[in-house]
């Protein structure tokens, strides 16, 4: 399945990127397509396109702060967790996303 998401932490220098990498690695290990946008101190990177979002089975927000453009995900299945959860248990998190989507 295809997972898209956003990671963002309070300072935007470390946890944002740790969470991105952990989720991407876990999702790839589960055989998923995955793209995580980061909203950090250096701005938005790896930005999700409207196509990415349209194709996604589920949206994962690993965020500790309010993010920009959350309304893009209106109408999608959205799961919101803290960056801590994404960093600590990425495999469990991806398994849960599969459960929710039913794939």
């Amino acid at each position, binding site marked *: 399945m295809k997972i898209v998401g956003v990671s963002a932490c309070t300072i935007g220098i470390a*946890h944002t990127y*740790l969470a991105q990498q952990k989720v991407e690695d876990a999702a790839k290990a589960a055989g998923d397509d995955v793209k995580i946008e980061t909203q950090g*101190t250096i701005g938005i990177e790896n930005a999700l396109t409207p196509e990415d979002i349209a194709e996604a089975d589920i949206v994962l927000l690993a965020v500790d702060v309010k993010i920009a453009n959350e309304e893009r995900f209106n109408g999608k299945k959205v799961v919101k967790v803290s960056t*801590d959860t994404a960093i600590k248990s990425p495999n469990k998190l991806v398994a849960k996303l599969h459960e929710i989507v039913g794939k």
Partner: protein
Amino acid sequence: MSEPSLSTVLDRNTIVTDLAARSKDDVIAALTQLLLKQGYIESQEAFIAAVHEREQEGATGIGGHVAIPHGRSDTVRKNGMAIAILRNEIPWESLDETGAKAVVLFTVGSNDDGAQEHLKLLSMFARKLAKSQVVEALLHARSADDVIGAFAD
């Protein structure tokens, strides 16, 4: 996408191995001393206060015996990092109930003029710390060269 070199962020003058520390405060004191000496920060006290402020917000131990404290402050002159590999693991609030054996302390300036590229390198560095083989090499580093080698591809 080709990545700029991480070696521009790693500074062997702010890396210490086999550090005998008993507490989080010991480690932060030792690392901020290095940062002060190398001109990354202007005031050790002000930077330590910023680091403590961040610590209050939640655990900076990211699991696997690694902690990544950080502080954003006006006293930061250069964005960068100091790294300590500890002789013995010490207690540190973490996501997986482990303590800290390796501590990577980031400095982040309040103003971001011209610092974007450097911050981008720091973000790539954080991403590296998500890789278990990098962490494994880091925990066993015995010298600054070992630490730098841990982050090499």
